[in-house]
């Protein structure tokens, strides 16, 4: 699957500019609500408000459950997202985001509630037909360190227009550190969005559901 992703990335690079996943900042003076179900190993919900186009504040809750052991984590966090740079091109847009936050964590391999730190970054490139993004997200405490790296590559079968339904077909590769999942978890996804609503769903190479919903308003 990882080889397949690399192959597709190469094909897309040859075909032209590429593009994204859900952005942590949708638009200025806008709210973003997001929920993701990641094949049983990761579940996450977030709410952010962006006072400006280049930063947003909010928080989230993430649950990590190992599919190798009984290890589980429950983390609540407050976070600031920052758009480090945006490239507005003639027919494309590229972004570099970074974020950081603090929260609390509980789990079944340590006792009590620990201070949790969150940091991450996302780079994306998007045209109306092609899309690519890479996201890395770290949750750590004195008792654990989990990083989730996600690569998404997508193609739109047609160019959508504002007000219409956008359709994207994506492949996703995801790696977890810290004993949540061994190897690369891959998935094929269909993404639909219209107006401020976005839903995507698919299946992983392990036959599990991968799904996400996001609303911007």
């Amino acid at each position, binding site marked *: 699957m990882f080889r397949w992703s690399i192959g597709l990335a190469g094909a897309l690079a040859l075909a032209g500019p590429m*593009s994204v996943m859900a*952005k942590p900042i*949708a*638009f*200025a*003076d*806008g709210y973003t609500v997001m929920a993701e179900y990641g094949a049983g190993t990761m579940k996450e919900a977030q709410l952010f408000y962006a006072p*400006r*186009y*280049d930063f947003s504040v909010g928080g989230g809750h993430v649950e990590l459950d190992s599919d190798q052991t009984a290890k589980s984590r429950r983390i609540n966090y407050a976070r600031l997202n920052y*758009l480090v740079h*945006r*490239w*507005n*091109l*003639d*027919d*494309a*847009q590229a972004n570099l985001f970074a974020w950081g936050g603090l929260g609390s964590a509980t789990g079944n391999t340590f006792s009590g509630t620990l201070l949790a730190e969150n940091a991450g970054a996302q780079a994306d490139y*998007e*045209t*109306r037909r092609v899309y690519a993004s890479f996201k890395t997200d770290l949750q750590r405490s004195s008792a654990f360190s989990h990083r989730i790296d996600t690569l998404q590559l997508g193609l739109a079968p047609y*160019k*959508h*227009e*504002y*007000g219409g339904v*956008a359709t994207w077909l994506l492949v996703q590769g995801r790696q977890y550190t810290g004993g949540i999942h061994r190897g690369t978890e891959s998935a094929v996804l269909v993404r639909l*969005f*219209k*107006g*401020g609503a976005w839903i995507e769903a698919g299946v992983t190479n392990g036959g599990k559901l991968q799904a996400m919903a996001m609303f*911007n308003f």
Partner: protein
Amino acid sequence: MKFLPRVLLSLLLLASASAQAATIEMQVNGLVCAFCAQGIEKQLRKFPATADVIVSLEHKLVAVALKDGQDIPDTELRRALTNAGYTVKAVQRTETPLAELRQRLKQGKS
């Protein structure tokens, strides 16, 4: 007696000018998704002078219809789009009604 026709003519011209609301068309870079358009529309509708807004991803075009007798300076429009995260390449004022522009865009003409 000559005074009355002049007044009537002036009133007619005034009514005609105010009925023809101006449209501001902007060429914008970075317009690739519905969320971009949504953010831009939200910013532009905050202007009291805005009557309606069109965003065309295909034509990289953002158009604002102005309310009768009102205006938004170019500098404020550029600032609004920059603050929304986009790059304005050009601003053009036309007398094309927004409905006509919408129809032209639907037919694939810019």
